[in-house]
Each structure stands twice: as structure tokens, then as C-alpha cells.
């Protein structure tokens, strides 16, 4: 506090502190606490608010726990998000390594432009592209049937479609952090390992992967969080059988009008993401400051 008013003078320093407080309190902390408050109260008509029935309980959470399909959808969301994370990692790692260690500067900048342009565009447009590709009488089915790989068209919308669309949507969040950390590895280390007789796999396992740990942690944290919290891909590319947890939240808010239960589902999602983030940071032994830069 003191250091800030001393550095910028009292009026300016106070102004900065005020802005930060307004942000953290008004847009981050208090809204989340309000959400928790809602989650712990029953959904009552306006006349009964503050009445005898208006008290704290875990009913909304228990509802999720006891519901025949919602708990299942929750678990499936976790599982699928983890799958998306692993999938994007596998897709991105070789390229990130190539960009960070092998490519010439020209190739690097050309590829980085190629990579970022699709991502400067709308997330929904990226989803739309896959919506068109995966359509029942769309280009993917047409091509596969034409090549004789399929005897008749397949319904892609559903789990497969959601997975493909998500991996596509969050590719860059995995690629860039890994590329950044791989590129700080001194190539001499790889040469030294090879000189000592290590094979390609061993070099990656013992030298490159440990060095790129922070980037991988960052990529995984963000991809998982974005996937678990995504509404767009499942809404566009899903089928009735592939509902996502976020869709349940949306339905509580705007279909069933039960905001309290929706808030409880939201809190559940938030806690899941926090646990996943902290768990992954612990797993990779990376601290928050170096993971989010």
C-alpha cells in the first residue's frame, strides 16, 4: 500500500488501488460468493424470500449427486475434457518441438502466422466450420464414402464431433506455451545427450520433456479448463446423447428458471476446475507464477 502511494504519489496511487479493489471485489470475489450463496439456498418464489423456508442447505448439490443422469454427465465432462487435453497434447507436442528446436527462423515465423490467423477469428466460426464438415451429407462423409472407407454415411455429431471440434478450438492454447518453453532449451543439451548415445525417445523423455514441463503444465491447465467450461462445441457439434455439464447449467438458468440449482452446478464446475488446476500444477511441480505469465 505504502509503496504504491510513495511511488506514484497519493492521488494516483490511491486511484490505482481503488481500480484494482473494484475489479477484484466487484467482478471477481463478490460475484463468486454470491453464486455460492445462491447455490446454498432453495429456489423460492419472490414472496417467500427471507421467509422461514429461506435457509442454507446442500439440497442443490445433493440433487446433482442423486440425479440419475446429471452425475453421469458431470463425470463424462471430466473424462472427455481430460481426453481433449491428452489429444491436443499429442497433436501439438511434435510440432512445438519442431518449432522450438529444429525449424529455421523463417519457417518459425511463417508457421506462427499460419497458426495464429485461424485463432484470431471467432471461436463460433471455428465450430461452424466443423459443423459443416461433419454434417450427415457433408464433405467428410462424402469423401470417406467416395474413397470406399465407409459404405454409407455416418452421424458424426455427438461425442466424436465434440472431441474433434474442441481439440481444434483449443489447439493453440496447448501449442504456444509448449513451443515457448521448448525454444528456451539449449540445443547443445540435445546434441550432448545424442552424443552420449541416447536415442530419440530417450532424449525426449529425459531432456526435452522435463525442460518443457512448465509449458506443458500451462497448456494442459488451460486446455482442460477451457474444455470443461466450453458451451459452444457441445451445443453446436453434440447430439442429445452427448450433453455437456455446461449445457445443464444453461438449462437450469434459461429453460427451467431455477437459478439456485444452476448456481450449485456452476460452483461444482468451478471447484472441479480449481481442483484440476491445482492438481496438475502439483503433478508437474510447477508454481502458479511460472505457469500463468
Amino acid at each position: 500500500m505504502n509503496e504504491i502511494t510513495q511511488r506514484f504519489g497519493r492521488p494516483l496511487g490511491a486511484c490505482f488501488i481503488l481500480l484494482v479493489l473494484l475489479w477484484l471485489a466487484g467482478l471477481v470475489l463478490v460475484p463468486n460468493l454470491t453464486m455460492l450463496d445462491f447455490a446454498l439456498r432453495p429456489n423460492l418464489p419472490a414472496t417467500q424470500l427471507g421467509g422461514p423456508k429461506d435457509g442454507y442447505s446442500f439440497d442443490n448439490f445433493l440433487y446433482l449427486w442423486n440425479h440419475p443422469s446429471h452425475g453421469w454427465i458431470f463425470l463424462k465432462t471430466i473424462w472427455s475434457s481430460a481426453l481433449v487435453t491428452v489429444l491436443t497434447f499429442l497433436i501439438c507436442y511434435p510440432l512445438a518441438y519442431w518449432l522450438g528446436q529444429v525449424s529455421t527462423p523463417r519457417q518459425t515465423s511463417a508457421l506462427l502466422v499460419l497458426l495464429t490467423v485461424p485463432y484470431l477469428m471467432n471461436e463460433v466460426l471455428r465450430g461452424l466450420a466443423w459443423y459443416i464438415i461433419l454434417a450427415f451429407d457433408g464433405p467428410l462423409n462424402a469423401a470417406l464414402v467416395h474413397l470406399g472407407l465407409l459404405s454409407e454415411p455416418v452421424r458424426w455429431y455427438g461425442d466424436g464431433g465434440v472431441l474433434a471440434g474442441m481439440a481444434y478450438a483449443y489447439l493453440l492454447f496447448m501449442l504456444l506455451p509448449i513451443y515457448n518453453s521448448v525454444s528456451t532449451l539449449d540445443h547443445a543439451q540435445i546434441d550432448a545427450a545424442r552424443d552420449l548415445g541416447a536415442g530419440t525417445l530417450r532424449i525426449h523423455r529425459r531432456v526435452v520433456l522435463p525442460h518443457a514441463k512448465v509449458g506443458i503444465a500451462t497448456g494442459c491447465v488451460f486446455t482442460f479448463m477451457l474444455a470443461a467450461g466450453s458451451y459452444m462445441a457441445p451445443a453446436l457439434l453434440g447430439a442429445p446423447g452427448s450433453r455437456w455439464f455446461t449445457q445443464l447449467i444453461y438449462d437450469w438458468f434459461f429453460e427451467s428458471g431455477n437459478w439456485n440449482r444452476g448456481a450449485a452446478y456452476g460452483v461444482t464446475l468451478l471447484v472441479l476446475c480449481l481442483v484440476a488446476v491445482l492438481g496438475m500444477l502439483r503433478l508437474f511441480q510447477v508454481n502458479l507464477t511460472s505457469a500463468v505469465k
Partner: protein
Amino acid sequence: MTDMPIATANSHKPASPLRHRFLASRLPDVLPRLAFRLYFVFFLTYLLLPLLILAAATFNRSSFPTIVPWLGTTDMWIAALFRDGEILKALGSSAVIAAGVIAISLPVGTAAALVLTSLHGRARSVLYAMMVSPLLTPGVVIGIATLLFWRKVGVGGGVALSILAQSSFIISFVMLMVAARLQRFDRTMEDAALGLGASRVYVFRRILLPFLRPALVGACFIALLQSFENYNTTLFVRGTETPLTIFIASKVRAGLTPVINALGLMMMVATVIGAVLWEVVRHRKRSTPGAGR
């Protein structure tokens, strides 16, 4: 040491009967390279083909956007785009929200970075965790938390609430970008200006702010993109407003026509032009360092 020259001599021997063995021994060398080539092609296809298909479908006469079957080439969808009042309205709505987000998140994000870098030790890491937490919160959760709290204090869904909800995490992006630049700021510069008689406010305006300008321009750009493409958060706080992403998504499931593709095409073109201009400007700046003020 001694058997090295022998090994090289052997490998130079023209051994035609041993040719297949020679190839076999090279296979572990060639195979990864070949695999990488294949992977590289697959990656670029995965990355770019969806966008090409999205763009190509604009020119198909078919009233559902697809490229199979091709019903004839037309530019009628592009013409239709410019006559579509709804789209223009959605675009305007997105622009207003983005302007509001920039107006809030640039000053607050800058203040946050300044406050953060003025602190040390534990206070700093606690504040840091709070400041990046919105980036680790699913967009859906930010949306509902903002909605629940601000509804309570009388601000309902709409443009204002969309601005607040998006700012909540876009400020974090701005903060990170400004803080990264601040790390390279030499604070004796502030002392030097003070020692020459400048007031603290003047030092901030004349020394610190110009130094931060590149980061602020970049942050402005990122804020604009993030705001424009946001879907998950805006979905919950939009009220009856229909920004662009919401509009597109709503059309995908009901009444999708290639007009949306035409819109996507326009955004792609704008993005590519923007990216190229950005690169050109950056290049020019680097080649004439004296003009960097």
C-alpha cells in the same frame, strides 16, 4: 578412437549386394523423418482445411452451407450479407461491448500491473493468484456469477453487464501483458525524472506511460479480439442483446445459410489483412530503430 576411420572406410565401400542391409540400417533414421512429414501435412490439413471449407461454401449456390454437392458458383450470399440488417445489428452490438471492455480493462489492467510490480514477497504472490484467477475460471461460471451478483444490485443482462462480465477476465490478460513489459522498466528512470523536478503524476504520464505504450497497444488488440469472440460468458449476461457470436450460434441450429459463411469469410479476410499489416509495421519499426518513439 582407433576404429573410427575403419568404420567410415566401410561405409564408403560400394557394396551392392549389401544394399538392402544398408537401407535397413538407415531405416531408423529415415522413418521418423517420414513420419514427421506425414504428421506435418496432417496437422496443416487439420488446421486449415476447415477454414477453407468454411470459406468455399460461401460460393456454393446451395442454401445450406456445404461444398458437396456443388450446385454452381455464386456471389449472392456475399451480396446478401450486406443487406442483412440483423447481422449488422449484431456486429454493432459486439462493437459497443468491445469498446466498453477496452475502456475498462486497459486502465484497470494497467493499474493492476503497476500495483503488483510495486509489491514484494507474500503480498505479491497472493495478489497475483487473485488477479489471474479469472483466467482459470470457466467462462460459463464467470457469466453466471456476474449475472447473479449484478442482478441483485439492480443491473440486469444487457450491454452493460456483458461489458462487466467480459472485463472481469480480460483485465487479467491486460495485466499480464503490461506486467511483462514493466519487468524491463528501469526504475531509476523514475528517480531521474523526479530529481529533475517532475511531479509523480508527470513522471507517470511522461516516462512510464510512453514506455508501456507498445504493451498497451497489444493489450488493446487482444481485448478487442477476446471480447468479439467471447461466447461462453456473454451467453449468460446478454439479456436480450444479440452480439455477433450469439447470433451466429443461434443461426447454426436454426436457419443456417451461407450468409454466415460470407460473414466468416469477411472476418477471415480482415484478420489476414490485419495480421499482415501488423507484421509489416513491426518489420519497418525494427529496420529503423531511431523511429521507435
